[in-house]
């Protein structure tokens, strides 16, 4: 099972590395959104500082939609999905592998985005462990539900528009919890960030389990 998961991660990351879509398109997209938020809030330092966590995670959600669409597209093109089914790998392993590959890409973008908010929004890091843990757990949670809904939207004709309306409402708790945990990590508001992290972990576990169970029927039928 772990070997299969590793195979799928390896495949997706290698395709990503060779096409450089994340690096050449998703990273500039994320930074553009961060800059546009600066314009929208009239470059008001106080407002930006107060809103940094929320804006950061909202941007991550947009990035996730793009990353999931990309991860799904590489399976849809040239009937790669059929090949994946024929390869005899457990659908749950494919799910975990694809989710981890998406998570790795989003994490990569997040690293650059943290740099972005430190520079553009004057943010300061108060608790690095909490910041890193939040990024890791929230990203895994986002990748799990994203990969499930991406596979689900893959067979739909209007998949580009269907995915955001399905994915974004489901991710509402992640936006709330990750933003509050970041508030603590960046020292913006005194809240218990670790408690929020627990909620994120719960969300991630539930959605990953559902994804691993439902991925098989979805892969076969759509």
């Amino acid at each position, binding site marked *: 099972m772990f070997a299969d998961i590793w195979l799928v991660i390896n495949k997706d990351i290698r395709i990503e590395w060779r096409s450089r879509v994340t690096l050449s398109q998703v990273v500039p997209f994320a930074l553009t959104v961060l800059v546009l938020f600066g314009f929208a809030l009239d470059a008001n330092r106080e407002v930006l500082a107060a809103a940094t966590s929320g804006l950061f995670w909202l941007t991550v959600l947009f990035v996730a939609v793009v990353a999931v669409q990309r991860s799904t597209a590489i399976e849809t093109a040239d009937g790669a999905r059929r090949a994946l089914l024929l390869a005899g790998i457990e659908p749950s392993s494919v799910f975990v592998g694809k989710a981890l590959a998406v998570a790795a890409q989003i994490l990569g973008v997040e690293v650059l985005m943290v740099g972005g908010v430190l520079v553009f929004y004057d943010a300061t890091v108060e608790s690095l462990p909490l910041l890193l843990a939040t990024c890791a757990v929230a990203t895994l949670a986002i990748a799990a539900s994203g990969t499930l809904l991406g596979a689900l939207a893959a067979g739909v004709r*209007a998949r580009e528009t*269907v995915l955001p*309306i399905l994915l974004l*409402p*489901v991710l509402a708790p992640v936006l709330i919890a990750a933003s509050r945990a970041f508030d603590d990590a960046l020292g913006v508001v005194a809240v218990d960030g670790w408690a929020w992290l627990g*909620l994120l972990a719960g969300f991630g576990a539930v959605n990953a389990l*559902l994804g691993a169970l*439902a991925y098989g*029927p979805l892969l076969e039928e759509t």
Partner: protein
Amino acid sequence: MSAGAVKTGSRTTRLLGFAVLVGVLALILLGFFGAPEDDEQRDAVRMIFVHVPSAFLTYTALVITAVGSAMWLWKRSRWWDIVAHSAAEIGVIFCGLTLFTGSIWGRPTWNTYWDWGDVRLVTTLILFLMLVGCLALRSAGGDEDAVATRAAVVGLLAAVNVPIINRSVEWWSNRTLHQKSSLTDGNLEDLTLFTLVVGIVVWALFFVWAMIHRFRIGWLERQLRAIDLETALVQRRAEASTESAGETSQ
């Protein structure tokens, strides 16, 4: 099949429909003229006769959708898929009604249409968006079984995530304005409470009535698709046989 012969009504649904009509009339009379004004909320309290039942039925619909979805994934029974679809559709209507009545009730009572601090209101809005997404997915079309499977996964996903959304919004706001459950806090006048119970019964009857009709529409739609497919097959076969007859006669 003769045109206009197929209806979704039956003796039972007509009786049920009549009961709903009578019930709504009784509810209007009780709600506007029977139940007294509230000391604090004045006339706005009358909104609960629609708001509380629709909120209750929204979550009932969500549970039915989840059960129908799980049963489709497990048994592959078309019956359950149509149940899930019908419940999701009717659930969206009740969910919209809950949000709408909640907002116009909030204006005179909280002095705002929307309160971010209210856990149940915010959770219900996100549920509304998820249900709308589920229906959008169904309307996007495609292979019948695939559509049912996709919608079932989204239905289950919505039901599973609602408690988590509720919890996150609760922690986040931590300052809920929403009054405690109107039925259990014991502050309601007797006649108001009675009217509320009548409201729940009437709207629940309407829910059942709408479910039966919507289910039958779904069932007929499915039969229609099957008939269309059969007709098309018969036509193609007929074409093929005339062509081959033409070839042999040549």
